[in-house]
């Protein structure tokens, strides 16, 4: 028997109450422990899709299974225990008076024992470099810190599947480095991770697979190097290849360097120098 998928989306169609058809038949399976990125231009249906993973949206047609459980038949509060979603804008998801309470909030909702709540809150605030702010109001933090706080609140209750909507949008370089660290952590924890993003430069180094969406449909699903060396495919989803892929593409056309996997700085430099010394 095939190993069970963490997320199984079958012929999912979703029409908003106003009549707008955001998803037009989506099929997707995410394996346990897989790290995938869903990419595509604004309005391609990415956010609508991930809102189905914990049941805040229910399919108009088709179905979504989380660990084999149909989202239509399970309450959001139960699904959320398995699927933690960090939404894009931190200001839409800060509900508590203090930074500490914000991280403890979901664990309390899920009925964690008090001692566990205390331990995990402390651990994850420290992990995200927010422990010194524990008694402050979340709204006094900077944008980057608020973002990290929303990530901490979700990681702390230890969901099996973690979904991040545009974790790097509007974040500065230093915050991105922080989030980068979190990605590595998630990899070592072997969580199932879904990242929704435009940021090719950022995401390419972590993911096993890239799923491209355009106008409510999945238009491609493949390994990063296959996707990012295909500029016309990316352009159809409003994306640009990362800089090294663009460079590699030009160089391979001139026969200077042909990447076998993800293009890498050292490899490109070596290839150019080798050709130069010849």
């Amino acid at each position, binding site marked *: 028997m095939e190993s069970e998928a963490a997320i199984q989306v079958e012929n999912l169609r979703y029409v908003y109450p106003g009549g707008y058809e955001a998803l037009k038949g989506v099929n997707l399976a995410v394996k346990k422990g897989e790290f995938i990125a869903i990419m595509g231009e604004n309005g391609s249906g990415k956010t609508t899709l991930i809102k189905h993973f914990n049941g805040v949206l229910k399919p108009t047609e088709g179905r979504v299974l989380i660990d084999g459980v149909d989202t239509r038949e399970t309450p959001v509060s139960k699904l*959320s225990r398995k699927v933690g979603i960090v939404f894009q804008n931190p200001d839409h*998801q800060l509900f508590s008076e203090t930074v500490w309470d914000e991280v403890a909030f979901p664990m309390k909702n899920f009925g964690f024992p008090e001692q566990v709540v205390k331990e995990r809150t402390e651990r994850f605030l420290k992990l995200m470099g927010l422990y010194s702010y524990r008694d402050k109001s979340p709204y006094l933090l900077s944008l980057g810190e608020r973002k990290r706080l929303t990530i901490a609140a979700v990681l702390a209750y230890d969901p099996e599947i973690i979904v991040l909507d545009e974790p790097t949008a509007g974040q500065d370089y230093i915050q991105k480095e922080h989030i980068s660290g979190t990605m590595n952590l998630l990899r070592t924890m072997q969580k199932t991770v879904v990242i929704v993003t435009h940021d090719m430069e950022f995401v390419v180094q972590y993911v096993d697979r890239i799923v491209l969406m355009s106008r409510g449909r999945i238009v491609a699903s493949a390994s990063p190097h296959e996707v990012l060396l295909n500029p016309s495919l990316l352009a159809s989803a409003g994306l640009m290849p990362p800089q090294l892929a663009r460079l590699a593409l030009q160089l391979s056309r001139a026969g200077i360097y042909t990447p076998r996997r993800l293009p890498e700085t050292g490899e490109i430099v070596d290839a150019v120098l080798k050709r130069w010394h010849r």
Partner: protein
Amino acid sequence: MSSPLQAFKYVPKDTFMDRLDPRSKFALSLSLLAASLASPQLTMQLVYLALATLLIAAAKRLAQWTPTLKAISPLVAAIFAANLIFTPGMPLTYATLMALRFFTVTTSFTLFFLTTTPDDLSLALEEMGVPREYTLMFTMSLRFVPTLADDVETVTAALLSRGFQLDRGNIIQRAKNYVYLLVPLIIYEVRRSLMIAEALEARAFGATKKPTRLYTLKMKKPDYLVLIASALIAVSPLAPAILNLSII
């Protein structure tokens, strides 16, 4: 958007009603309202309601109007019941009259809002001498209704995603649950209003006391016809008396 708000949502269509000047449309709605309030006869109420419904049909907005109708029906039933119980004399006639009147009033105003863009409406108000500060406030409050609705949806989704159950507990507890929803919303909307204010400043808002307008409203022939019709509707409650008709 949820259905009760449907009444305010302008969906562009090219019909006779859409092409009218907002002022003549306003006069039309107002005259129907005045006539309905002034007329004590059931028959006349039916005529006004039929007229308003006909106009909505002519504007091809019947489908949009029905949700509003459904939404106000319980209210109409309550008005009917209250009048039936508390009116001395002929309660049935009076209760029916009041219920019909309520339908007519809402229908005639729905007619106006369904066929007039917020922009046109504020233009008309400016034309009538209302200062831009106020007309803009009006335009923007309508403009930001869908945006606010989106924010409510996103915050609710985020709250549910943290394992929170909005419908948990008794009535008082449930009301308290909603505070969790309100706090981020209020903070967010206050921030948004600040950003809007900044953007207004950057567009030279308030530079002159008398801003000019790209579009100016102009009454055309149909508008004058509608104005005449409106005047006739406004005086129509007197018709039964003048023509000496005995109707109820």
